[in-house]
């Protein structure tokens, strides 16, 4: 015990000496004190951008985040979070913005209406489609396969070891918006859902299926860069009508068209941060997003580099966001 105590005493003395030294050595090439933002008027400070796990989202998030960092001098933090977890961060200030939200009426009810920690900032210009897709060779070889009523006919062709006699419907990340389990049940389809786990895994599945001419039925969505590589064909489910998907247990219709919107922390929007105005003004098209997503997913660029490329190519659009 004595040894340890002496050691602790010595450590304390050293720490004191170290802090003295730190205080004494003034010079050097690092400015002590904050050097602040490089441009822009008001202080921006931290800007916490959630990143949900699909490439299209990443594209939007990095473009907004990089514009904020470069033009407004914000200290942009990117937080990789699943949708529902990200919403829980609004109240504590850990998350400022979810830049691409797909519906999520339950979360809006809780965090926007009830807790009032989040606000809906408005559409981001992207229009979302969710559905079931097959590889193009399959739709060409069996044109009737794109009608849901014929899916049972092909169930055994779509079967895998995971689902036995039943057909396999591949879904993505468990956190994605999906009614697929209920749809299969309510449309009396002879299928079972298997979660591939991620967007990348779905893409790999579709790619292999097209290359090897295999049966593959999967959950997928637009905007989506991959459709320019392999133009998947959407299966028609019973048409969507207002209210047909109100009860998740009895839903038996297609997904609606999603007007993707921006959700932000209420405190952040009220803070007067210049990034809040940027988020309000940000809007772009599906083609814009697909372009950046293509840089990331296909050309292997980092999110920051991909965003940089697009920002350099589209100064007009960026200026419009900044100047309102």
């Amino acid at each position: 015990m004595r040894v340890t105590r002496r050691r602790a005493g010595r450590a304390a003395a050293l720490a004191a000496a170290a802090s003295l030294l730190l205080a004494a050595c003034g010079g050097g090439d690092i400015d002590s004190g904050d050097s602040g933002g490089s441009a822009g008027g008001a202080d921006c400070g931290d800007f916490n951008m959630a990143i949900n796990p699909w490439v299209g989202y990443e594209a939007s998030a990095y473009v907004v985040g990089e514009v904020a960092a470069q033009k407004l001098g914000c200290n942009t933090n990117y937080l990789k979070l699943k949708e529902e977890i990200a919403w829980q961060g609004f109240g504590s200030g850990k998350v400022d913005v979810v830049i691409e939200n797909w519906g999520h009426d339950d979360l809006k009810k809780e965090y926007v209406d009830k807790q009032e920690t989040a606000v809906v900032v408005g559409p981001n210009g992207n229009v979302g489609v969710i559905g079931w897709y097959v590889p193009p060779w399959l739709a060409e070889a069996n044109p009737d396969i794109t009608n849901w009523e014929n899916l049972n006919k092909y169930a055994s062709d779509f079967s895998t070891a995971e689902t036995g006699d039943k057909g396999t419907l591949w879904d993505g990340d468990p956190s994605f918006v999906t009614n697929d389990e209920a749809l299969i049940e309510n449309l009396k389809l002879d299928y079972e859902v298997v979660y591939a786990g991620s967007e990348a895994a779905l893409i790999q599945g579709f790619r292999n299926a097209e290359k090897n001419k295999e049966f593959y039925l999967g959950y997928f969505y637009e905007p989506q860069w991959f459709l320019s590589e392999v133009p998947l064909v959407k299966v028609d489910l019973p048409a969507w009508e207002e209210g047909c998907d109100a009860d998740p247990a009895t839903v038996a219709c297609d997904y609606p068209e999603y007007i993707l919107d921006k959700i932000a922390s209420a405190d952040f929007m009220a803070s007067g941060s210049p990034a809040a105005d940027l988020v309000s003004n940000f809007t772009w098209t599906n083609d814009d997003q697909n372009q950046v997503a293509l840089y990331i997913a296909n050309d292997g660029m980092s999110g920051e580099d991909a965003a940089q490329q697009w920002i350099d190519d589209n100064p007009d659009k960026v200026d419009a966001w900044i100047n309102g």
Partner: protein
Amino acid sequence: MTVELTEIEHPAAEAPVPQDDEGGGRLRWIALGVVVVVWVILGVIFHGKGTQDLPVSQLTAFQEWLNELRNTIEDAKFNGNPIFLPIDWLSEALDWTVTQLQNLFVSDSSRPQGVAQVGWAGVVALAVWVAYALSGLRIAILALAVMLSFGWLGYWEQSIDTLIITGVSVVICVIIGLPTGIWMSRSKRVTSVLTPVLDTMQTMPSFAYLGPLVLIFGIGNPGAVVATLIYALPPLIRISAYGLSTVSPSTVEATTALGSTSTQLMTKVQLPMARRTIIVGLNQTIMAALSMAIIAAFIAGPGLGIPIIDALSVLNVGIAFVSGMCIVFMAIMLDRATSAAGERSEATSRREVNGQRRRLILGISAAVAVVVVAISHNQLRWNVFPDSEWGRRIANWVNDATDTISNSIGQFTRWLSDAFTEVFLNPPFGLDAWFVDAPWWLVSLGILAVAILLGGAGKEATPRLAAAVALGAAAVLMSGYWADSPLDMSWVIYWGAVVALLIGSSAVGGGGALIPTAASISLIFAVGLWNDSMVTLTMTLVATLFVMIFGIVVGVWMGRSRRVDATVRPFLDGLQTLPALVYLVPALAFFPAGRFLAIIAAVLYAAPVAIKITADGVRSVAGPTVEAAQSLGSSRWQMIGKVQLPMSKGSIVLSANQGLLFVLSMVVIGGLVGGGGLGFLVINGFSQREDFGKGLAAGIAITALGIMLDRITVHTAARYGRADTA
């Protein structure tokens, strides 16, 4: 984990119950055969009936109730309920601590103003000095290499972030864990109350409590630290309690006779004498904290988990490989440093070290470190780690190699996945036929029968059997499987019944596998996830079968030759320190999502433990026995089959126990990649608001499965395994 540690964790294994002679043993095997035959026949007759399959989009009343509980908690927090005052204070304190440490130590090259108070050179110097002071020169050199590798591989700030989260959690673990361990070592009652709590903390899958933790502590640093804490605390408590309770009674008596107070006894005698064991516990806790700090990235915890989750979502094997390397290096550094510190502390207490000279060297090196810290504070070059291409180069190389390999053998691996699933899992021949597609009553009776035959019913078997039946009946009633909907009873009563059930069963549980098994099965029923639990159970059993095959084959090979052991062991160490998430990325590159993928990952994760335990068992077969057999002219295979394997039976059963538990914990992660069953439900509950309750219920079911498998194997080991070790 070594044999020694495993036995500490399962004191039940110490209880000797070998009342059976050889004849009774043979009878038991016949009975076991009869049970299996009956199970198979009834399984065929009742195939697909009473499987209690619950569609994913459907929730039982219990699961709905958990959802409501979640809403209540969320409302209470939102409305500023005073219960949350201390919690909010605690999470702010944690957040503040971690942020301050980050400002102090984490320079970030990806940001324009990413300088820290102490730059990379200073951090390296401090780490090397601490390693030298605590663990000696060799470890100091290791620390230097490892710390520099973080920067060269391109993950400097993530690595230091991970070290900070791990460090803060471990400090809190020591603050909580050591007193708790002392308390446990002094009181049998405390031990019996805390043991099931610690069991639950270790078997409850981390994803199951990440959701509730976010609810209470929020995302980011506080949630990450608390999650890490929960997972890392049990080993320290258990091992320090064990270490303290094994301090020789005669020493304790002598000290007490000399009139020491109990505080003096603790601080002057027991703690110093148990120091070595406590450091072993600390080592285990640090390792556990490191692995959990990675998973905490799912709730915005900083560190190396972020690139790994990223790699998993974009299927980038190279990134997973490089960031995985950082984790393995970090684990090796922490492991070696604590082990060496443990040995050193003994040497110091025995005054084997030359104090004078050592103090001089420490002083000089400290001065050097302080100068480096000062320079790194001022000079940008020594503050922000210079850009390095190495990590990217390695990642690209790994990605190219993966592409080439998966293009050439992709067809084969997909065929393998299908064939394996058909043979081992799917009906008619796979295990699913007897668990997933068989009626619930057949499976639960079958499991109970196997548990009794292998693990025993304990003393006074008849009342225990009656208690087990009563438990089961209560659970079936509570789950509402008889009616279409669950019993409409107040949830206070419901939970009262569940808790009474658990406490009651642990009170009468000693001495046999029957009661714990019955309680676990009942709990699985009560949470309403029978079918999903069976999916997970079959995957676990199949994976464990392969773990055991590897364990015995490689373990015997290693146990018979020191040279093989020395070559293979480092690979096993590496596999064990890689976090589970890292395996999934390359596995996904070769195999389609599904149960096979989850099984591969589980086997990779669990095999090293089983191999090591078996190897140690084979090696410990006494030299004279082996020599005697040799002199009688045994061939190599006779030696293995007739002498070494039978005599290390105990180790093999023990490795089955550890294999099962490791596999079970990995099977959950398999839910991320189409593994299905409880693992998927846990992940899903973490991802979708309306499935929160179901996910938590699945977490409870996994814990129940884990306790059941553990108790059956532990009691089996206690009955059959003692012969060789005694």
